[in-house]
């Protein structure tokens, strides 16, 4: 058991938690504005694929060298933004069911990367390998600091700026915000688009940070773990960060153990059970067994103004 808590485990926890933190904090903006975000998975996939493809293009076609992953990161951000825009128009402008649209985005994004890579790279579902020195920084210290700054920034935006106040009010009681002269749809657009950007970056980090190419369905449910972390973190930035670290840790343990964790008593915990931890915890929290996790009150409800 002592072996579990090595420095390398902490480092890999941070690395693995990074895409979760980014996506979950994105989801935070969206859900705090009242729009459910089960499409985080799709947005991460969009970000991951685009980032890898753009980095590859910037590297090989434009010869941008060390700058290419940063261009790729931007690409991931834009891809997430683009997908979020479709989602936002569907949910906000056309008042579609948010869960259905989210599911549609997820299915769509399972197909798009394979569709495009098949055409552009002639390898179904993945992008070409990138050189190791043309990836995003992976030093746990650098990442940790970046993440901490980001969380602090988001906390500040959410609680200490007029934008944050309006965003939260729109997610809690849109008619109150409307009566106060705040545009509900403008804020929901901002919330969803911010979510897209952050999830896109999160996806980008997956393909051009943690690994060096995009592979088919490489998020493997991380968008949903991010959603779980958001709920486990009770829709608050700092708690969400902690939840992501916890879930990153379980992933790190399951990778490091490659099979089973040995308990001091000699018994094995199969890796499958470790993988389940985030999901079980989320269900438990949602049922109110560990404190209560109350969603924003208007979450999932399109705002319909009487006319």
């Amino acid at each position, binding site marked *: 058991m002592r072996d579990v808590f090595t420095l390398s485990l902490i480092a890999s926890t941070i690395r693995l938690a990074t895409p979760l933190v980014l996506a979950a904090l994105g989801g935070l903006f969206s859900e705090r504005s009242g729009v459910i975000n089960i499409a985080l998975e799709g947005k991460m996939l969009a970000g991951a694929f685009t980032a890898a493809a753009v980095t590859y293009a910037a590297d090989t076609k434009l010869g941008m060298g060390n700058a290419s992953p940063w261009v790729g990161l931007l690409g991931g951000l834009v891809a997430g933004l683009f997908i979020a825009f479709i989602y936002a128009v569907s949910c906000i402008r056309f008042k579609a069911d948010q869960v259905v649209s989210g599911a549609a985005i997820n299915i769509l994004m399972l197909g798009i990367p394979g569709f495009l890579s098949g055409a552009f790279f002639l390898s179904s579902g993945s992008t070409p390998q990138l050189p190791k020195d043309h990836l995003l920084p992976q030093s746990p210290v650098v990442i940790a600091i970046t993440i901490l700054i980001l969380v602090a920034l988001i906390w500040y935006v959410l609680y200490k700026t*007029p934008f944050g106040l*309006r965003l939260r*009010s729109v997610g*809690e009681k849109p*008619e109150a915000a409307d009566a*106060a*002269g705040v545009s509900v749809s403008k804020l929901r657009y901002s919330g969803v688009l911010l979510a897209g950007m952050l999830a896109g970056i999160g996806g980008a980090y997956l393909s051009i940070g943690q690994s060096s190419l995009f592979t088919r369905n490489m998020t493997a449910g991380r968008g949903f773990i991010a959603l779980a972390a958001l709920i486990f973190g009770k829709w608050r930035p700092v708690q969400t960060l902690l939840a992501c670290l916890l879930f990153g840790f379980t992933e790190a343990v399951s990778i490091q153990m490659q099979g089973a964790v040995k308990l001091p008593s000699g018994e094995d915990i199969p890796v499958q059970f470790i993988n389940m931890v985030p999901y079980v915890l989320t269900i438990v929290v949602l049922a109110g067994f560990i404190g209560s996790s109350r969603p924003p009150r208007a979450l999932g409800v399109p705002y319909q103004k*009487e006319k």
Partner: protein
Amino acid sequence: MLELREITKRFGDVLANDHVNIVVKPGTIHAIVGENGAGKSTAMRIAYGFYTADSGEILVDGQVREIRSPHDAIALGIGMVHQHFMLVETMTVAENIVLGAEPGSSFALDLKSAAAQIRQLSEEFKLAVNPNEPVEHLSVGQQQRVELLKALYRHAKLLILDEPTAVLTPLEVEEFFGILRRMRAQGKTVIIITHKLSEVLAISDEVTVMRDGKVVGGVQTKDTNAAELARMMVGREVLLRVEKPDADVGRAALEVRNLSVTTATGAKRVDNISFQVRTGEIVGIAGVEGNGQTELIEALAGLVEPAQITGEIIIDGKNINAVSARARRELGISHIPEDRHRRGLLLDFNLAENSILGVHYRPPITRLAGNVFLDDGAIRRRATEIIEAFDVRPRNAALPARSLSGGNQQKLIIGREYHVNPKVLLVSQPTRGVDIGAIEFIHRQLVKLRDQGCAILLVSAELEEVTSLSDRLLVVHDGKIAGEVDPKVATLEEIGLLMTRGH
């Protein structure tokens, strides 16, 4: 200050505002009175930009203005306090007040200076509100003052108040009027929507009376009196009376002993109420809406969790506190709910399917295999019977309930609830949003059912309706019974006093 010119607004086939003209002079308190559904709120919501008028124009300070959203209204110095407060419960008072008009830069929300400003305003108008308190911890009266502060904070010159006293206790009403007078003294203009005449006379300078979507009169308050206003509001001198023989009263069919009902959040809505309803009588419950009537009826119908109820509900001598809604129906309790869209109908289902709600699980509606299957023939027969007996139009059981007018929807519900020959009938707002012809029909049916020996408990916000139909009248205030009166001899004034002042 504010002028509405020829404002017309239609909702579906209802003409809510029909060429409405209202002029509000600056520095006055202007009352707009009318019965429920007269179009008062609609007109004011148009002025605040919540609705857009189909035609007509709005003038602010003598200039024609486009008010397309509350944002526009706020910019023109108009504030509105809605009947249902527009507050975000989880946020603090200060956060609610500054929302949409935040102080400081867009990068830093300056709640401290806001709080100071709120304190100052609060003192100026003697509102006694703590800016840092979360709204969900405040009483209703305090929440209303937060709404006022919201408007004041935005430098509103004109405040529109929609039924502001409906949720207040008498003491709070006094205080509230004090606040309004201070506002007038400071040069603000106030529009107050109400249907309580005593308040109009107590607080306003001018009155506009509305009826059926039209303005039927405008007077100086000092030149009028309650009787005249009432006449204008109702549109007829004589009060509506329902012809009914004397009640032939039998044993107690429904008895309520020390009943209290709390909401899921712990607020007490019905407070230690006791009464009986005997066979062959209509017991009316009069009161300002929101004084526990809804919760009382729902508790009796079995729609409130037993844990939220204390005291006893007794049918034919048996305590039914823990009996489910279905089993209560089987005991002979029928229920005509106050909100037919929310409770009474499956709007997407057709009339036939709606006609079996509540009896859908037992013969003759079901058959075969241990009564699992629905019997189409039986359903159609039942629907036809109800549609014919209660003159539901159009006479087509295959139409979705949504497509019917309010009056016909209500007749369908009443027909359904009558069809089981109830021993006890719980009726709430039976004629709300129903046309005149249907109202009379519904009233006659209620009396007929009474004469067949049913025990009827009738809740209505229409004072005339409840006094003319009831054999005995209980007046509720703040969840308690404020008094019982004989509807044959009691004057509306007497009842109104009980309704508004409690004991």
